């Protein structure tokens, strides 16, 4: 008798908490609360009780999947301009590590200012994915950066369709309206990409990474802050991984940078800055980076695609 009551109550708690989670997600999508103050993710887990609930578990699981460097997006093939930067800046001018730190800071600032507004918009309004895809394509005035973004975006659709969709878009589990819209938006874009002929023209759907990232995270139950944080963090990881392979630093030093408070502060500052930036005002804050990335094609030998 008592045992059954407990079970019922537990079930009710789970249900209520998942509804609370949905309501929070909707609130986040509707009225843009203040940017993440500091450790929003941690705070979120602290406010809920010590028993991990189903929805938290799902979101944590999705978070770990999406932050995994083994996620097959091919991100390891891109250095986001680091390779070209190194070739353009003589190592003798400054110590290589100092020079790399400068690049990392500029690179994070640039990815946040050019792409993060599209990530956030994709998460907030998944149904606008096709417009966001067109607009970010128009706003990337560099073929090298475009290729990198499209390749990773299409890989993300592939991973979603072949691996995640079956677990995160099951018809028997009730999902919120936003999640449904996100799933539908990815399906639509995927169909559009398949039906679009290669020679059609260069104004068709492209499948850029940033807006898709926002929408896929929404479909997998990540909240807005997690989505933004993992996006910027994954970028930092990719640049550091490229630095290790380009021989700028060793793997321990790279982890040291990744774990540092300085990197966390830089990321939080950049996310806060772009939190309310409409996509129309997204822009390049590091003009020199456009030159480095654009001139990657001129490198005599290359180990990366960007």
């Amino acid at each position, binding site marked *: 008798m008592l045992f059954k009551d407990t079970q019922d109550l537990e079930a009710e708690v789970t249900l209520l908490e998942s509804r609370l989670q949905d309501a929070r997600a909707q609130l986040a999508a509707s009225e843009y609360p203040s940017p993440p103050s500091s450790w929003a993710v941690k705070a979120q887990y602290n406010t809920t009780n010590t028993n991990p609930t189903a929805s938290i578990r799902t979101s944590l699981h999705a978070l770990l999947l999406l932050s995994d460097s083994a996620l097959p997006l091919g991100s390891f093939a891109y250095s986001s301009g680091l390779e*070209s930067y*190194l*070739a*353009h*800046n*003589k*190592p003798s001018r400054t110590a290589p590590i100092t020079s790399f730190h*400068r690049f990392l*800071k*500029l690179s994070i*600032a640039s990815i946040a*200012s050019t792409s993060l507004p599209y990530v956030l918009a994709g998460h907030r309004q998944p149904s606008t994915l096709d417009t966001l895809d*067109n*607009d970010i*394509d*128009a*706003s*990337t*005035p*560099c*073929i*090298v950066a*475009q290729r990198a973004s499209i390749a990773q975006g299409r890989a993300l659709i592939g991973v979603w369709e072949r691996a995640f969709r079956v677990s995160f878009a099951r018809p028997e589990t009730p999902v919120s309206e936003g999640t449904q819209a996100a799933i539908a938006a990815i399906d639509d874009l995927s169909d559009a990409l398949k039906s679009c002929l290669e020679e059609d023209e*260069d*104004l068709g759907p492209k499948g850029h990474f940033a807006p898709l990232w926002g929408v896929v995270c929404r479909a997998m139950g990540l909240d807005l802050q997690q989505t933004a944080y993992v996006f910027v963090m994954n970028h930092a990881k990719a640049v550091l991984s490229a630095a290790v392979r380009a021989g700028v630093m060793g793997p321990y030093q790279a982890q040291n940078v990744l774990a540092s408070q300085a990197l966390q502060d830089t990321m939080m500052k950049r996310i806060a*800055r772009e939190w309310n930036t409409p996509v129309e*005002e*997204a*822009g*390049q*804050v*590091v*003009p*020199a980076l*456009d*030159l480095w990335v*654009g*001139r990657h094609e*001129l*490198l*005599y*030998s290359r180990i990366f695609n960007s």
Partner: protein
Amino acid sequence: MALPQKPQPGTGQLEVHAFCGSSSISALSCTYPLKLVSPPSRPTDHAVLVFMMSYGGGLVAGDCVDLNIRVRPKSRLALLTQGSTKVYKTPSKSIRSHQNLTVKVEEGAALLLLPDPVQPFKDSSYEQCQIFHVHHSLSSILVLDWVSEGRTARGEAWEFFGWKGRNEIWSLPDPDKGTKKKLLIRDSMVLDETSSTKRSYSDEMDDLGVFGTLIIRGPLFRALGDFFLAEFSRLPRIRANGKPHEQIDLRSSESVESVKTWSATSVRGSVIVKFGSRDVDVARRWLRDMLLRDGTVGREFGERSLLCLQ
């Protein structure tokens, strides 16, 4: 009682139409501090030449210039300036100078925008927005947008409060095909206090003295776009660090050839050229040299259209 409407300060209207194989101005008006001047055209000119000027040679804090232009089918307009557009010091960060330009370039029409660079002084704050509406395949535009580091003679190097520049190209809606207007290109640069990590933006600009973008689009400029792409692909390859003979330094500025810091790329029907140079005059000579070698601009718009690159 309704007051008679006063014209907004800083606004301008300009309309150009095709006339007997040439172009002529059908409407021109402007209010202080904006001034539009068109020198008399010669019978051999295909294009109308208009200078955009402002009293005092620049913009003081709070100035707002808003120019609307229509280039009617098959006509040609060359828009130039007389000297760099100076942006003067603002008493408060929140008081910006604005410059907006909206141009509708209709079917078969062509626009050439080859101004001098914008020169933002120390402690200035500036925002510019240039929007071009074009027919997706039949309008031609060549837009140069460049900004310098400030008054180099006084040692200024990207020490303004803020600089925001945006260029957008939209395709005009086509009622026959039922297509809506679509964003073709958006090139946007943001340098403001929250974007930078330091007091000046020289790190973001990699210690360059001038940075610019050239957008080339449409049938009239196809050869010019291809020329830039071909020249870019012919640039010497850059070897990995340690090989001195082919090492390229972004900051070198010995000759015209030394504007090595440029890239050209073809995206969505436009060719976008980005360039940077330590010195404004080096960039100016390089641009002039490139445009003269291709020849399209001089031939179609007259030699005078290259005045700002002299």
